């Protein structure tokens, strides 16, 4: 018997997974309403197709696979609507984004040098800090946000992220570097600025 065969889609499970999926969708779509739509559609599809869930993967992995399809639909729809082309070549431009942080000799550019943050762990207890964090994560470009999310929140390995996003390991590393560097800047500007200078 498959290890996850006894997984159920009861209300409790749906509630719990919904929260998780929402963060995933938010990281990818950077729009609360669209993220909510994608998650709703995912859960509906999951309930309708639960019979086809073979239990070969964990329930969450199965749900995320559905969600990724829904997100891809959303992105295609958005591209068709001829809105801003959000699917830029994030991986390829990650290097360029990093160029902005460093001077040409590779040293910290003006105003880009990291400042001391004092005792940042105190922020983890602060509700407002988490709002800032969510905002900063939403500002990351879609694919970069997805890679970062898979790595840091879902705890996936570099290899599985590379395979899932169909990018090379080097590209993956650069994307994660960019995500971290950009988050760092956002958190410093919106939260830590001035707190650790004394």
């Amino acid at each position, binding site marked *: 018997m498959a290890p996850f065969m006894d997984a159920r889609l009861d209300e409790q499970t749906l509630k719990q997974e919904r929260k998780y999926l929402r963060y995933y969708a938010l990281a990818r779509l950077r729009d609360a309403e669209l993220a909510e739509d994608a998650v709703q559609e995912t859960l509906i599809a999951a309930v309708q197709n639960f019979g086809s869930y073979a239990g070969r993967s964990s329930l969450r992995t199965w749900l995320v696979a559905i969600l990724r399809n829904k997100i891809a639909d959303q992105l295609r729809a958005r591209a068709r609507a001829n809105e801003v082309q959000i699917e830029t070549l994030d991986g390829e431009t990650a290097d360029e984004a990093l160029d902005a942080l460093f001077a*040409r*000799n*590779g040293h910290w550019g003006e105003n880009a040098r990291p400042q*001391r943050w004092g005792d940042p762990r105190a922020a983890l207890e602060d509700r407002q800090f988490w709002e800032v*964090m969510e905002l900063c994560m939403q500002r990351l470009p879609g694919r970069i946000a997805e890679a970062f999310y898979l*790595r*840091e929140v879902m705890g996936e390995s570099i290899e599985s992220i590379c395979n899932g996003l169909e990018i090379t390991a080097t590209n993956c590393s650069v994307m994660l*570097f960019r995500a971290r560097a950009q988050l760092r800047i956002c958190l410093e500007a919106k939260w830590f600025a001035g707190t650790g200078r004394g």
Partner: protein
Amino acid sequence: MVRRDGARLSKTHTGEMMDDCRKITGMISEGLDRELTWSERMRIRVHLLMCSGCSAFEKQMIFLREAMRTLAERIGGHGDH
């Protein structure tokens, strides 16, 4: 250019060979995703002795990892690095 120990050094626009902040912070980031070699760790250590910006960066990366784990717990993710 590849050194005898196999480590690659970046080439700056002036042509001199040295570990710059971009290279070092990139390595610090990679250290969150794979185990660094002894030589990489030494290069980071030496650089951090001289560079306050990269030292702050390293501390912040450790904090960021901790914050993400906390977030994972809050929303029921795996977060099991």
